């Protein structure tokens, strides 16, 4: 069949393209130009595209498939980067990869694939798509150390039906690199991409401060009674639940302190002792269901951070969201995703409200 492969220029999506081509499909490669690479790395004169797009093009040439670079800069700026910064400005900790998958990739690029007469679109994500009864299901991958299902919870049923994730059954990354080598792809040994793609080497706070200057600047660290304990250097540097960047306050009164709340309007970081910090109940917004949830609630495991064990909970659907009741208290951070699982299957998810 004619299938569009979203090619990032990395090993994973390159192997996807090569595999599908080998299987005899008519493969079309597409690479999204998401931001001006030259600006992102602050090197004037650097090509707008950067290394990754050129790598994707080279792989496509090698595979002898058509390849297109799609300018999604404007859409990426407005739907991903701006809301990333807005979220920090509200005192949240956003997950830009979810917004990008949801909008730029699985809405815009996918609709382009349909326009081009493709029967499916494939990506290099590590998740499994399982043919369920009538409709496709989204599952954690074979290699749990690469699991990206948490980042894909917002995939709608229609999108899921159209998508393919050929790497979901790969046992590990080495096997993927091995395949890349067998296909003779020059990028077989390319390092994994890390962190947030549009933020050069882990300086996300400075990106946020550039986009939303009001988040820039010092503020107070206070305890729950409002007592000032110290100063911080910008709210974007903190996430609910963290104990880093608290300096001496970290172990005040002999008890481990963590960030309990971020008040964007007063630019205050509110800390409290770790053992008292947990919550049982919280709300979700922008809920995406991949099942028909029972109004009596859904018994499942929820995962409230990208890298964390899942926790047993009841989730109750609401008109525009859901209410989560955990068995044991935890520290949900506003803006992060809360993804619902039953075994390996993703049932849905939403964003944690403050």
């Amino acid at each position: 069949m004619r299938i569009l492969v979203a090619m990032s220029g990395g090993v994973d999506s390159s192997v996807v393209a090569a595999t599908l081509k080998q299987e005899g499909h008519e493969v079309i490669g597409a690479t999204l130009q998401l931001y001006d690479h030259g600006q992102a790395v602050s090197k004037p004169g650097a090509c707008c595209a950067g290394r990754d797009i050129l790598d994707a093009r080279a792989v496509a040439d090698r595979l002898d498939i058509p390849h297109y670079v799609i300018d999604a800069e404007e859409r990426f700026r407005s739907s991903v980067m701006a809301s990333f910064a807005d979220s920090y400005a509200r005192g949240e900790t956003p997950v830009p990869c979810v917004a990008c998958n949801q909008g730029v990739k699985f809405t815009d690029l996918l609709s382009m694939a349909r326009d081009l007469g493709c029967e499916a679109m494939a990506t290099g994500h590590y998740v499994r798509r399982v043919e369920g009864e009538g409709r496709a299901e989204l599952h954690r991958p074979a290699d749990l150390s690469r699991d990206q299902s948490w980042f894909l919870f917002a995939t709608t049923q229609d999108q899921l039906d159209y998508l393919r994730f050929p790497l979901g059954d790969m046992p590990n990354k080495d096997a993927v690199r091995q395949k890349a080598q067998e296909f003779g792809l020059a990028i077989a040994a390319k390092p994994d991409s890390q962190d947030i793609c549009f933020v050069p080497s882990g300086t996300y706070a400075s990106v946020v401060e550039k986009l939303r200057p009001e988040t820039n600047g010092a503020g107070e660290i206070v305890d729950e009674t409002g007592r000032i304990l110290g100063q911080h250097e910008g709210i974007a540097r903190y996430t609910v639940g963290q104990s880093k960047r608290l300096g001496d306050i970290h172990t005040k009164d002999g008890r481990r302190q963590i960030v309990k709340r971020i008040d964007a309007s007063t630019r205050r970081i509110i800390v409290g002792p770790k053992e008292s910090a947990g919550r049982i109940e919280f709300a979700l917004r922008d809920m995406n269901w991949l099942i028909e949830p029972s109004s009596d609630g859904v018994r499942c495991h929820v995962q409230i951070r990208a890298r964390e064990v899942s926790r047993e909970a009841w989730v109750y659907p609401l008109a525009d969201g859901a209410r989560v009741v955990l068995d044991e208290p935890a520290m949900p951070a506003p803006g992060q995703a809360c993804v619902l699982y039953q075994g390996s299957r993703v049932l849905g998810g939403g964003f944690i409200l403050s």
Partner: protein
Amino acid sequence: MVFTSGGTEANALAIHAFGQERRLLIGATEHDAVRMASPDHEIVPVLPDGSLCLQALEAALQREGGALVCAMAANNETGILHPLEAIGTLCRQYGALLHVDAVQVAGRQLAGDKRLSVAGLTSLAVSGHKAGGIKGAGALILGAEGHVSPMLRGGGQERGRRGGTPALPAIVSMAAAFGLAMEQDWSLIASLRDQIDMTALSCGARITGDRKCPRLPNTTSLILPGISAQTQLMMLDLAGYAVSTGSACSSGKVSASHVLQAMGLEDDAACAIRVSLPWNITESQVEGFVGAYVDMARRLGKKTA
């Protein structure tokens, strides 16, 4: 005449040689080869039909300081011609120098009685591959004898006006291509172009500028409102036809066209593709293209309807 590596270099040389100590007035739809070679330029707007606004040019020329005017003979994205005779007259009247980027017309409309002759022309840039020559040769044609300050020194080639060994095979092929272009039946190519225009119009497309304004015989710019140019390009490419959108960077990323924006097109600027026919186009190839275009418009048009 100074032989160069192509149109970009010829334009850059003209601006380097004649633009020093002068105000640079360039048309809003000039090619990047001119825009980028003159960072401190003043822009002369174009009319909605894509032709240079003579009133604005005159107003700019009336202001103080000697000027070099850079105007393209024909636009690379739309094929629309500038009124060069009138531009030349204004330049003479105000004592300004005039450089014409003729890359798009050379080998297309220099033929026969349409020989480009503008009195008082300072220089004119051409490139061989546009007429089917080997890539790698162009020339800056000078209106008058005299020394031209080189960009590339040393070597002393081209009478000291451009250092570096000239690419003789490419230059010979440029000459051959221009020679053959003089014998080409451009009205035949124009009629094939018109066939594409008429089909596009019947599919709900618009022609950038106006069908009746003076244009190159082989170029047209088709707007299919509501359908991104990128998608059109991909669909036609998959069907075996290479068209272009705006100007593409080395990665193939397409950026918004400054040409169409200068003509006042806003959202539609992102929905335009350029179709240009080579000298050896055949009728059956045009029929094939027209079929692919109709398929595409039908398929994508449904979505927006």
